[in-house]
């Protein structure tokens, strides 16, 4: 039997019972669409988290006080370790380090012309905008001399500025009060230009020495941002920071370190691991519906075989070999699942587009996912079509002809 005849017989058989063929592929359509949407959501989430992490700077290494086991969660906690400006200066002197921005944080009531709000106050250096990829929209960032003089100047996050002074107003040169201390507004961040994802649009930034002198009264740091020269030297920089701080803190064993070092790369790989796991999990849950769809195909094909026993007998009588019969039924099953897969792919793509457009979630259908969907639906056709096709081919021609 020629392939062309096989295709033609398949088309005729399936279109002879359009209603049933449509209902049968519905299971596959829903299954494939569910897998596509779930995987798309997983991949979209991965992309958006990754770009958030990338937007906080480039080749960034972050040093926080506290033992590594407590990781990022202990940022700001100083109970079992402290970082000081001296540590930050020591890091700045290391090879491969381009810039260092020490940071101390506190929170306080901030009042402007329009309103007052509780805001996080970040004390840092002039290097912060470059390292953290923060852009200043209106006005300027404070300078090194503002820091050394502990000047009472502040840069506002764009959202915080809107709250304090009203949307669209220019607060540069205006005065604000932080915990009752009067500050001059030097500039406002531009959230959009900063990537919009690094949190630079909320809070108030002041020089580190100003924060320590007027607001927090402490000289410890909650975080040291370090920009390495390149992606390649990040691990080396991370290791030399470790050594330098161990020496400064008089700790012999790296395992007893009272500080933690996290690189942007570490963050990305952690996130990637988590989101990949989530994608696989979501896909697997949706895959169950695909399995159910496949069982539906098998069920329908078995019913078809029973209904067409006489036809099978006739085909055998006019010269069909057993493999011609099995090829035909297998081809019908695969045609159904592939068609279902393609419709499911279109549906899944459409649902993903709607989800992306109407919600804060991002669903990305990749080419790999699309190809996988078609491959999986073909596989399901073969897997679940095999048994009915084999049953059809094994029928005895004489009994099949006689079957009423």
């Amino acid at each position, binding site marked *: 039997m*020629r392939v*062309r005849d096989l295709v033609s017989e398949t088309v005729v058989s399936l279109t002879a019972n359009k209603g049933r063929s449509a209902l049968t592929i519905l299971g596959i359509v829903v299954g494939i669409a569910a897998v596509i949407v779930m995987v798309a959501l997983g991949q979209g989430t991965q992309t958006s988290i990754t770009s958030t992490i990338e937007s906080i700077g480039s080749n960034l290494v972050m040093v926080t006080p506290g033992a590594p086991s407590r990781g990022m969660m202990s940022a700001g906690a100083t109970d079992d370790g402290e970082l000081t400006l001296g540590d930050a200066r020591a890091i700045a002197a290391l090879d491969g380090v381009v810039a260092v921005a020490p940071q101390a944080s506190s929170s306080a009531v901030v009042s402007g012309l329009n309103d007052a709000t509780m805001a996080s106050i970040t004390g840092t250096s002039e290097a912060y905008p470059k390292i953290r990829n923060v852009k200043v929209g209106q006005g300027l960032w404070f300078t090194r001399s503002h820091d050394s003089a502990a000047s009472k100047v502040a840069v506002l996050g764009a959202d915080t500025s809107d709250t304090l002074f009203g949307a669209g107003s220019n607060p540069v040169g205006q005065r604000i009060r932080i915990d009752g201390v009067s500050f001059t507004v030097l500039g406002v961040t531009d959230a959009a230009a900063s990537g919009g994802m690094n949190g630079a649009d909320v809070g108030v930034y002041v020089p580190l020495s100003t924060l320590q002198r007027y607001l927090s009264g402490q000289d410890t740091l909650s975080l040291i941002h370090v920009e390495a020269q390149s992606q390649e030297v990040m691990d080396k920089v991370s290791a030399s920071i470790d050594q330098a701080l161990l020496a400064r803190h008089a700790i012999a064993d790296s395992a007893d370190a009272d500080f933690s070092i996290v690189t942007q790369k570490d963050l990305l790989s952690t996130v990637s691991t988590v989101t990949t796991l989530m994608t696989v999990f979501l896909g697997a849950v949706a895959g169950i519906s695909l399995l159910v769809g496949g069982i539906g195909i098998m069920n329908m094909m078995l019913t078809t075989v029973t209904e067409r026993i006489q036809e099978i007998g006739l085909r*055998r009588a*006019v*010269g*069909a*070999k057993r493999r*011609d019969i099995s090829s035909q039924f297998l081809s019908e099953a695969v045609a159904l699942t592939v068609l279902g897969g393609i419709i499911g792919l279109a549906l899944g793509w459409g649902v993903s587009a709607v989800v992306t457009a109407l919600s804060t979630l991002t669903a990305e259908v990749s080419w790999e996912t699309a190809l996988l969907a078609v491959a999986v639906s073909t596989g399901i056709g073969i897997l679940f079509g095999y048994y009915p096709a084999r049953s059809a081919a094994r029928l005895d021609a*004489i009994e099949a*002809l006689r079957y009423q």
Partner: protein
Amino acid sequence: MGPIVHVRDLMKTYVSGDTETHALRGVSFEVRKGEFVALMGPSGSGKSTLMNLLGLLDTPTSGSYQLGGVDVHSLGDDALADARSSLIGFVFQSFNLLKRATVMRNVMLPMIYSEVPERERLPRALAALEAAGLEPSLHAKRSNQLSGGQMQRVAIARALVNDPALILADEPTGNLDTATGEFILKTFENLRDQGRTIVLITHEADVARHADRTLHIRDGLMYEESDAA
């Protein structure tokens, strides 16, 4: 002209558990090219078994069977399928058409298994339909829109389309009224006149009368051969 069908000592025994059923106990006969032979016997006589053997749907327990000069009694499954496709044309009591397919598609069906080149299919199907006496206006109809007589003509056309050595008709008038049945039998006579070889299986003497010769079978044995008028 030598025989198209040459059967010697054909035996078929079915074994089911401990019981052996001897459906054919040694049957020998010949059918010459261009002959219209009736194979007659009551139910349980072994005529269905003989038809299945003649039609290459089954293999004998022992004995030899040559069809169109080919020794077919020992062919394997695939070779039997090929032989059925090229040597046999079946006509069944219940027509066995693909109900939702058109007349043309039904007639062309055997050609997809014998892999006839596509451009030859339509002319061959048209010639077969003409030989079977089906009006051209019905060619595009679906087979379930036809009357019983028309369906049997489609089945005959399907049997002719691969130009088989033997047409095997199993009770072809069994589902038809007498008048329609007569027309179908006349069609077989015409085909015989065109040189076709036909074996018709029946249990009715009225039907067998249309054949040149009748072979009687009873209890698995061929007990008489008589030349019909």
